[in-house]
């Protein structure tokens, strides 16, 4: 593809090309090493026992954790996505451009995205678990995670909304459509792929989160029977297995399942994105 002769007399371009290729190779290498490591450590430890319906200290099943992960991921998105998207709509479509308040919101939300999750966990514990009296429950976990990914969803949605050409808005207004209709029928649909990218990042954070959940959703090993009962996600499960060094093997097996789950969730998301984008284009 890249004939070396094309770079004759252009050492700068050649150097850039090498850097680019190296960086891409390095990224792939890192991924291969990571995935290889997980598979190498985990696959030999994958047993059917790990997928029984109930957890005991003998089978160390991760099945309840898998179910809880799906529940918590879904419900957190259910809370965070509407709030995040609506906030972004307000910031981009309704608030005036020079609005100082908007700047403050943007700054603080962005800042929140760098706060370590243990702080969210402690906050969630004091606020949802204790003050609101929800005790250790996946609801407390869901709300904490929703707050945690809110800045992410808001930001990506904001960027996606800003990227929608003004001509669409003008076209819609020009037909006598109100702001609301313009936003829902023209602007938001065009922004869906961007919003979904934010959702994917959010899912990544939810699925990978531990600290914020330990203090809120708790670490009960069974399937949460209601929103107000406790349950652990796969990551928490893995963390719990690792922490005392007693179940290292099972923890690695969990990592494999976690990896597969991330792959599946990503694949579904990008499929949805394609579908929506395909409908628009």
């Amino acid at each position: 593809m890249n004939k070396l002769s094309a770079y004759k007399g252009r050492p700068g371009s050649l150097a850039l090309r090498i850097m680019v290729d190296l960086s891409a190779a390095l990224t792939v290498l890192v991924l291969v090493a990571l995935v290889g490591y997980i598979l190498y450590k985990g696959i030999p430890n994958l047993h059917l026992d790990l997928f029984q319906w109930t957890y005991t200290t003998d089978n160390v099943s991760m099945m309840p954790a898998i179910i809880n992960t799906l529940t918590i991921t879904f419900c957190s998105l259910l809370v965070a996505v509407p709030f995040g998207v609506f906030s972004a709509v307000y910031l981009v479509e309704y608030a005036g451009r020079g609005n100082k308040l908007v700047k403050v919101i943007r700054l603080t939300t962005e800042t929140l995205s760098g706060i370590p999750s243990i702080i969210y966990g402690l906050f969630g514990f004091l606020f949802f678990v204790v003050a609101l009296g929800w005790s250790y429950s996946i609801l407390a976990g869901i709300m904490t995670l929703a707050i945690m990914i809110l800045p992410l969803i808001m930001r990506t949605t904001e960027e996606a909304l800003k990227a929608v050409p003004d001509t669409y808005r003008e076209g819609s207004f020009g037909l006598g459509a109100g702001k609301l209709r313009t936003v829902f029928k023209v602007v938001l649909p065009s922004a869906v792929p961007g919003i979904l990218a934010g959702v994917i990042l959010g899912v990544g954070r939810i699925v990978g989160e531990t600290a914020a959940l330990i203090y809120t959703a708790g670490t009960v090993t069974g399937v949460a029977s209601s929103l107000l009962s406790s349950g652990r996600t796969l990551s928490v499960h893995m963390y719990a297995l690792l922490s005392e060094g007693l179940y290292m093997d099972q923890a690695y097996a969990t990592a494999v399942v976690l990896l597969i789950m991330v792959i599946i969730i990503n694949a579904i998301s990008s499929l949805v994105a394609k579908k929506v984008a395909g409908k628009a284009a």
Partner: protein
Amino acid sequence: MNNSFKEKAMQLVFLLAACASIIAVILICVFMFGNGIPAMSKIGIVNFLTGTLWEPFADVYGILPMIVGSIYVTVGAIIIGVPVGIFCAAYMARFCGPLQYKVLKPAIDLLAGIPSIVYGFFGLVVIVPIMKDIFGTSGKGILTASIMLGIMILPTIITVSESAIRAVPESYYEGSLALGATHERSVFATLIPAAKSGITAAVILGVGRAIGETLAVSMIIGNQAIMPDSILSGARTMTTNIVLEMGYATGIHRQALIATGVVLFAFILIINLLFTLIKERSARNE
């Protein structure tokens, strides 16, 4: 009439949603500041920020080593992660064929989805021994953590930069080619500068991730609460300080840990403010 009512109602809903975000922000701030500020004032802000000793058993709380540790590690992560990330984003947006892209794109999404605890163990089992053999130290330390974080911020930087580069009008690229510039020069001298605001956003997000990362770092940095004297020496960051001791901390010790979180918050706020200022200045120049 019915319509205009709906308009008003929904505008209110949007406003309320935005307010909910603000309320969440405020709640967390209240929680952090409420717990952190009393400790800071008891310890003395200056002592707290500039003290080099962290001895909870003696009620001595100085977090300068952690501040320095956080800065070292974050800068290290940027030095390692940002160039690789941007080059890789350029590769994905402008150099690779559709086949390579099909492989690379999900791979990078996958990198983003791997929990940090897995990164941490990977670092502990794979990177630490390598560093140990190369440098003859214990293998844990600032450099190791920087490499790990450099890797962990890659997906963020690559994803956001790639879409920023893709968003640059094709006409810039064509204009450059038509002047006889090579493909590489066209990408790096026109597309990437034109995408700089998006790339800056990517870097900010990456910095946020790096400075806020806890679990993985705590496994491979050594966590010594001392002023680091080289990039190979062990160190403790603000986040690892919090997560490390929170489990047993009570009273003022606990508050001091949350106060560390407040300082972290202030740090990220300052970084974001600086970036905003730079952005606004460069926007004004245009």
